[in-house]
């Protein structure tokens, strides 16, 4: 195998990884605010992408408007779910909420299947698929585009979390909820903003990845890759989520080149177990001190 092929595979791995990273980020945003693992994140991504696609077919929207519709739909969906269901379970344990989000994911997938069937649909892309040659290396615009768009979104998230009042409030709640409340931060508002923000990030990831994997009700399973990525990076750490996602994407794309077909699908999980055995809190995570 030549170095050029290697570069090509790594770049497409980074593109897959960027999507995983966005998924991981949306899981981490909700986890940091509410300490719950949102099982329905993947299905929310899927449904909002479907809504964008349906709007595009109905009104012949340009692609950028499709993206906006999907993001808007996601925001509304995140807000409604948080307001009507999650907030009612305020006295419940984390495990109860886990089951609630699981129920949500089942419902969203079934609803999408009823509305749009369980078939696969082609989805238009912002970027072409015809490879461009850079020296000996051939790169596809779609990979480069996904990477660039994801990095731009991550930069925007970084600015949001470091530069704005909302971002600071979210980080404060993630660190210590009671202290944040005593400082006058409305924790409830942070909950709701976290759900909206996470849903929006997911919708962008959905519109970016749908042209590559096709739009279907099965798209929601990407939540498992997002979870894997977040855990590799250290759950709760946002740079960790990005690192974990990229690493996972590259490993997934490289494994088939070097390994027999029998174990290639297990490789990401074996790598995950190996990483956790060496670093039990992920690459960039910190072990939480045990308190009485």
């Amino acid at each position, binding site marked *: 195998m030549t170095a050029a092929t290697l570069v090509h595979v790594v770049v497409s791995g980074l593109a897959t990884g960027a999507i995983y990273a966005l998924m991981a980020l949306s899981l981490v945003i909700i986890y940091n605010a509410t300490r719950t*693992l949102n099982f329905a994140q993947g299905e929310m991504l899927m449904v909002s992408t479907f809504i964008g696609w349906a709007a595009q077919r109905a009104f012949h929207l340009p692609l950028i408007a499709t993206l906006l519709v999907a993001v808007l739909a996601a925001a509304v969906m995140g807000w409604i779910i948080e307001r009507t*269901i999650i907030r*009612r*379970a305020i*006295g*419940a*344990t984390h*495990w*109860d*909420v*886990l*089951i*609630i989000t*699981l*129920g*949500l*994911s*089942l*419902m969203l*997938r*079934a*609803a999408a*299947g*009823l509305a749009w069937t369980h078939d696969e649909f082609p989805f238009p892309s912002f970027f072409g698929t015809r490879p461009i040659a850079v020296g000996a290396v051939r790169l596809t615009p779609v990979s480069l585009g996904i990477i660039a768009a994801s990095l731009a979104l991550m930069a925007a998230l970084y600015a949001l979390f470091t530069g704005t009042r909302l971002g600071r409030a979210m980080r404060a709640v993630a660190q210590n909820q009671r202290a944040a409340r005593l400082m006058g931060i409305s924790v409830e508002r942070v909950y709701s903003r976290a759900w909206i923000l996470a849903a929006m990030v997911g919708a962008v990831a959905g519109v970016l990845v749908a042209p590559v994997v096709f739009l279907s009700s099965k798209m929601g399973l990407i939540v*498992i890759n997002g*979870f*894997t990525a977040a*855990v590799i990076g250290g*759950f709760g750490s946002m740079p960790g989520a990005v690192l974990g996602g990229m690493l996972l994407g590259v490993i997934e794309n490289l494994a088939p080149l070097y390994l027999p077909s*029998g*174990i290639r*699908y*297990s490789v990401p*999980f*074996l790598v*995950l*177990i190996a990483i*956790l*055995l060496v670093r*039990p*809190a*992920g690459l960039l995570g910190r*072990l*939480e001190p*045990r308190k*009485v």
Partner: protein
Amino acid sequence: MTTGRALLMTSIVLLGVWPWVAPRYFVFLASVILVNAIVAIGLNLLSGYTHQLSFGHAGFFAIGAYTAAVLTLRAPHLPVPLTLALAGCITAAVGLAFGIPCLRLGGLYLTMATLAFGFVITEAILNLDTLTRGADGLRVPVARLGPLTLATDEARYYLVAVVTAVMVAAAVNLVRTRTGRAFLAIRESEIAAQASGVPVATYRALAFGLSAFYTGVAGGLFAFVVGFLSPDAFDVFLSVDFVVMIIVGGLGSVPGSVIGAAAVTLLHDGLASFQNYRPLIFGALLIACMLFMPGGVMRAVSRVARR
């Protein structure tokens, strides 16, 4: 405890006469419920007592099922109890081998590791096709008990019912042993248990092994009950179902595990005729259950009883 004893006697009698009064399909369904109840009890030992949530129990279940099937194929004259015990022990060995290195992991990290374990096991079954026939699936021969062959639904039901009774009795009485008291102490507070001299790490590993043993035995029974194994029956959704059973039933409770297993199995079966609407209804029921009965059925029951 008189109501408890009456309840116990009624359920034993009901279990005994069930094949005489119920149609054949419901005999089969009862076997599946009991098999799931054993898994739920096993998972609850791990999650309810030592707070280790596993999304990989379909993997242990698969190991037990395939072990029992392959043993029966290769050594047809092995009596069923021995086959099941071996299935349990081999699964427990895998559970310990996986659980001991994972002792350092807490919370979500352990959950993720078990999820990964489940995926790796299904891949392994697909690839060990000389032993497991891979994606084609494996037909399980009829179980034998000395001169008896357990070829009917009724016979298999009685096998499952007896094994379940033994496993339930063992789980209920576990709290009277040193190990059980250690589990209870860890359930209440890991740090307090550690401070009182309970070797927490040892018991967490033991919980992993014990949980895998229960799940392996249940897997072996499952192989005989359904008669056909294929790797896609043991996917992550089955693991998720097991977790749903114990959380809906009640964490750390043996009756809760049985109730949760029965509820989830019956729901899946009862909603089958709704086809595409099935997950919609199932999901809505899950949400409603957790909103109106936080902590699961057993918590709700004890709240009503106290009133």
